[in-house]
Structures are given as structure tokens and as C-alpha cells.
């Protein structure tokens, strides 16, 4: 009992400290993780097994961690597969950014649509969706918003509608694949779902929703998609000028292609995401030997540490049985009505993710849905897709719901265009409700 109470206190403390931002979030999760190991596992439970199980070090010597031969990868405690995969993708994305890939792509598309504001708006939304399927949405928005601001200054239109729409589409695109958004990576690696399974389930939901999202944003923003140019002659930026090195550009495009192919085929090849992450990082570094150290320095280690601490804290809740209690509570509310359970998981995930970081939320909910599935006899995959969609899409509703939102709003503010809570939520919150509603309808029609 004491272990459970302390575990909950540490978890709540971690959440509060993350929200208040008084201490960097990686220190918060790591500190709370250490507290969990020492106080809960060490002092209260006196269980060295719980410590080792949560640290999950032995997973590295398990052949299934690298290539699925005998069965399934280990999934309890620190999810090292997620951490290694994210590390690999970070290295690849840094390499692509260094080569000028993202800016080149944005400028190419703007040029292809002849710099027409409405066309840029529509194509950038689609590009944001597609890129975010494979690359983290922070990077997608970082570059897309920068080019949007640049084009808005050139063509004299407000970048705000475009940036809000791009943010939303990046979050939606992230929900479509296993590697698009961190909650999906954690769900995929913890519950052993493949890239293909994500695409055919959350991907389908995302693509159908995207059609409505494009229509919605076009209707609400169409009056703002006008250029104030009055016949001035403009010197448009040349896409090829964005490329810093042709060699690096070609190699980064090839590596990106390899990463996509490896991810799509990983269920067939048996390669785990950890192996794919390591492989992508190594070939990126080998292709840019002179910049290898620079690329490694640019990796966001704080986020990786944040993940390690987070997994330990969630492991503490799991080991002490707290998450089983939460699952039992949800099961009691729902009775035997699975449809209500799905609605609860979807809407609670969406609402929670709109206000708190969706990564700790998803990590906490995974053991909960596992227990729900086991005790209620519900297909775990349905709960997994529901959780993924809820956490990924819910984050779009408010300025603080997802990292891409913060980065996009910051890029707009640097150009003097302020997007406050009211302005952002006025457009993004209804879009979130629409997509969650569509998702719920698809889940009900398809799985029940």
C-alpha cells in the first residue's frame, strides 16, 4: 500500500513539475525515476527484481530486440527500442536539414503551384501531413512555418491561417504511422504492432479525416488566403539555393528513402525499429563523415533522457499495480459495454492530450489498455488504435497540446504574428472535435 501511495505521489509530482516548467523536463523525469527506483522499489518493495525489470538492460542481449526470430521483443520497463529508434531518426533528420532538404522541398512545391496563396495553403497542408508520417512533427513545422513566414512576407499575406492548418495536419499525419508521433512509437514497440498495421488502421482514419480537415480549413480560412501584392515585381527564392551540398542532399534523400522502405517492410524483414534506428543513424553519419560529430551534437539528448526517466516512473506505477486499479475503475464504469469503453479511452486521451504532454499520458495508458483487454476480453489492437488516435489528435486542440503547436506558434510570433489561445483554439479546437468524431465513427463501423 505504501509503495502504491508513494508511486502515485511521484507520478503526480512529475506531471506537476513538467507542467510548471520550473525544472527542465528531462531532469524532472530522471529525478522522479530515480526516486521511484530508490524509494518505491528499494525501500518499500525491497525488490531488486522490480529494479532490473524496469531498467530492462537485459533486452540488449536478447536477439529479438534486434531481429524478431523467436517471438516478441521485451516490453516492460524502459522501452529502449523507442529511445534508439528516435535517436536514429534524429540523426537522419539533422542530416536532411543540414543538406537543405526541407527548405528545398517547400520552395519546390511553392514554385510548382506558381506561388498562388490558396494553392500553397492546400499543398503545404498535404506536405505537412505526408512528411509528419515519417519525420517528427517538430522538424516538419520548424521548416514549413519558416518558409510559410518567408513566403507570406514576399507575397504579402497573413501566415497565421496557414501555420495553424500546417500544425494540425502535421499532428494528423503523425497519427497515421508507427513512427509519426512518439505515442505511436511507444504503443507500437510496447504492444508489438508493425508499421503496416498502423497504416491500415490509424493511417486509414488519418487519411479519411484529412479530406474533411482540408475542406474545413479551406472554408474557415478562404477569405484570408489573398495576396496584397499590387503588381510589384518579386524575386522568388530558387529551390536549388536551399541545397547546401549536392552530395549530402542526394545521400540524405536516399537515406530517407531507405528508412521509409525499412519501416514499411519491417514486419516482413523482421528488423525491429531499434535496428532500423541504429542502421539509419550509422549510414547518415558515414555519408557525412566531416559533419558526423556536429550531427551527433545536435541530437536532442534531453528528450531521450526524458523518455528514460518517464519509462521508469510508468514502470513504477505498473510494478505497484496502480495501473491495474485504474483499468479496473474504467472497467467498472463501462460494465460490459465495449463501445462506451472505446469512447472513454478516445475522448479522455484527446482531452488530456490537449492540455498535458501526450507522451507520458500514452506511456501510462498502455499498461491500462493491456489490463482492460485481458480482463474485459476486448481486442487489444482496437484499444491501441483508439489510444493512438486520441493522444495524437487531441494535442492539436490547444497551443500547448503538442510540440508542433508550440514550434509553429513561436515561428509566427518571431515574425510579429501573434497566435494566442483564443485565436488558435477558435480554429483548431473545432477541427479536433471533427476528427475525433470521425475517428470514433470509423472505429465503431469498422471494428464492431
Amino acid at each position, binding site marked *: 500500500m505504501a509503495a502504491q501511495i508513494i508511486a502515485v505521489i511521484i507520478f503526480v509530482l512529475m506531471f506537476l513539475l513538467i507542467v510548471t516548467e520550473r525544472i527542465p523536463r528531462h531532469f524532472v523525469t530522471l529525478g522522479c525515476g530515480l526516486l521511484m527506483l530508490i524509494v518505491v522499489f528499494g525501500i518499500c518493495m525491497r525488490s531488486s527484481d522490480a529494479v532490473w525489470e524496469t531498467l530492462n538492460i537485459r533486452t540488449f542481449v536478447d536477439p529479438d530486440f534486434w531481429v524478431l526470430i523467436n517471438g516478441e521483443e521485451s516490453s516492460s520497463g524502459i522501452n529502449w527500442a523507442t529511445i534508439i529508434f528516435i535517436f536514429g531518426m534524429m540523426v537522419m533528420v539533422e542530416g536532411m536539414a543540414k543538406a537543405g532538404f526541407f527548405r528545398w522541398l517547400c520552395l519546390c512545391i511553392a514554385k510548382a503551384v506558381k506561388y498562388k496563396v490558396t494553392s500553397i495553403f492546400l499543398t503545404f497542408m498535404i506536405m505537412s501531413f505526408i512528411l509528419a508520417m515519417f519525420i517528427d512533427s517538430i522538424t516538419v513545422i520548424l521548416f514549413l512555418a519558416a518558409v510559410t513566414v518567408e513566403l507570406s512576407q514576399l507575397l504579402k499575406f497573413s501566415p497565421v491561417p496557414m501555420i495553424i492548418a500546417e500544425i494540425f495536419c502535421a499532428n494528423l499525419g503523425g497519427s497515421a504511422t508507427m513512427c509519426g508521433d512518439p505515442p505511436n512509437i511507444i504503443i507500437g514497440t510496447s504492444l508489438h504492432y508493425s508499421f503496416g498495421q498502423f497504416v491500415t488502421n490509424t493511417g486509414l482514419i488519418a487519411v479519411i479525416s484529412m479530406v474533411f480537415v482540408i475542406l474545413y480549413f479551406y472554408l474557415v480560412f478562404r477569405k484570408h488566403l489573398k495576396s496584397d501584392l499590387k503588381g510589384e515585381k518579386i524575386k522568388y527564392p530558387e529551390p536549388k539555393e536551399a541545397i547546401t551540398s549536392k552530395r549530402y542532399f542526394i545521400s540524405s534523400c536516399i537515406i530517407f528513402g531507405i528508412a521509409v522502405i525499412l519501416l514499411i517492410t519491417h514486419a516482413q524483414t523482421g528488423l525491429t525499429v531499434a535496428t532500423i534506428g541504429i542502421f539509419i543513424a550509422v549510414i547518415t553519419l558515414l555519408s557525412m563523415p566531416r559533419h558526423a560529430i556536429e550531427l551527433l551534437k545536435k541530437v536532442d539528448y534531453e528528450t531521450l533522457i526524458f523518455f528514460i526517466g518517464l519509462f521508469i516512473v510508468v514502470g513504477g506505477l505498473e510494478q505497484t499495480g496502480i495501473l491495474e486499479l485504474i483499468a479496473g475503475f474504467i472497467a467498472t464504469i463501462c460494465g460490459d459495454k465495449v463501445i462506451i469503453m472505446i469512447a472513454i479511452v478516445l475522448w479522455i486521451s484527446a482531452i488530456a492530450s490537449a492540455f498535458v504532454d501526450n507522451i507520458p499520458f500514452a506511456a501510462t495508458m498502455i499498461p491500462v489498455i493491456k489490463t482492460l483487454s485481458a480482463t474485459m476480453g476486448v481486442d487489444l489492437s482496437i484499444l491501441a488504435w483508439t489510444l493512438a488516435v486520441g493522444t495524437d489528435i487531441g494535442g492539436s486542440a490547444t497551443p500547448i497540446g503538442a510540440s508542433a503547436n508550440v514550434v509553429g506558434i513561436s515561428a509566427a510570433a*518571431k515574425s510579429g504574428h501573434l497566435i494566442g489561445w483564443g485565436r488558435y483554439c477558435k480554429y483548431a479546437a473545432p477541427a479536433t472535435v471533427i476528427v475525433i468524431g470521425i475517428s470514433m465513427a470509423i472505429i465503431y463501423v469498422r471494428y464492431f
Partner: protein
Amino acid sequence: MDKQIIISISREYGSGGHAIAEMLSKRFGIPLYDSNLLEIIATEKNVDKDSLKAYDEVPRVRLFSRRVKGQTNSLEENVANLQFDFLKKKAAAGESFVVVGRCSESVLKDYSCMVSIFVLGNKEAKIKRIMGLYNLSEDDALDKIERENFRRKMYHNYYCKGKWGDSRNYDLSINDSILGLDKTADIIEEYVRKRIELMA
């Protein structure tokens, strides 16, 4: 002016620090940057100045903002950063100016040509000044002073290591209620001229 000089005036609300900054700007013949800074930025960026001014020297609301990779959705912080960047750009370009508030004593601390002043005042004098300026009762004036000073303190202390009003953070802290605005400005002017003489 031959030599670059930057005069940073921080002030308690109601002390008259802004009026002293205006006097110094005229006496040295250099521009004054206060809330007009956002008007300049708005013109440069072709945006509405009032939308920026709503967040001028306003402390960040932690609960409604998040930070990701050094970026934030906090409009207060983004507007503050626009002003800090503007001041740094002007200072780097070798320009001389007087700047009121905006954490300038910390933002421009690397410039040896920067003279930082904190202007404070007696409670009674500040109340009297605010009552006259805004036609308020004594109680309302005191409320306003306390509220504004709290806001300035929160704003300053969020961005700067040194505490707002702590004399150790400024070259000179001066109570202008004793000598009045003109004579206080005389003393600060004399101090700044001595500093200019000392500059290599």
C-alpha cells in the same frame, strides 16, 4: 555622439523614471526606446502594433505556455524576445540610445558602454504622482502602484538572473523623490558624462 553610450533606466512605477529617461534622451541627443520600441518592430514586420503592445512587459503565464527546444508559445515571452533582439541589434550596430525597462540592464550587460540606472521613489511621492497623472484616489493609486510593480518584478525576474530593483544589478540606484526629477536627471547626466570620459 562620438562614443557609443547606452543608458538603461529601470524604474519603480510612479517614480518618474520614464520622465527622467526622456530628459536624458534630450540632453544627450540620442533616441529613447520605451513602448515605442514595439511600434518600430510592428512597422518593420508590417503587423498591427496594438497586438504586440498588449504583451509589452507582461510576465509569462506558465500554466498556459510550454517550451519545446527553446521555443515557446508564450506571447509574452515572444514579444519580450522581439524587444531584446531589437535592442541587441541596435547595440551591436554601435548606436547610442536611452532605453526604459525591458530588462535592458541584463540584455545589454556585455556592452561596456551601457550605464544602468534604477530609479526609485518614496511611497507618498509615487502615490501623489499617480493620483495626479490618472486622476485616481489615494487607495486606487496605491493599488495601481503595487500591481504594476509586482508585474514589472515578475516580468524582470523571469528573464534575468539578478533581481529587479536589487542595487547590486545596477551601476546607480537613485531615489528621485528627494531632489525631484530635474536634479536627479542632472546627477545621472553628470555620472554618465564621467563614464563617457573613462571610456577608452
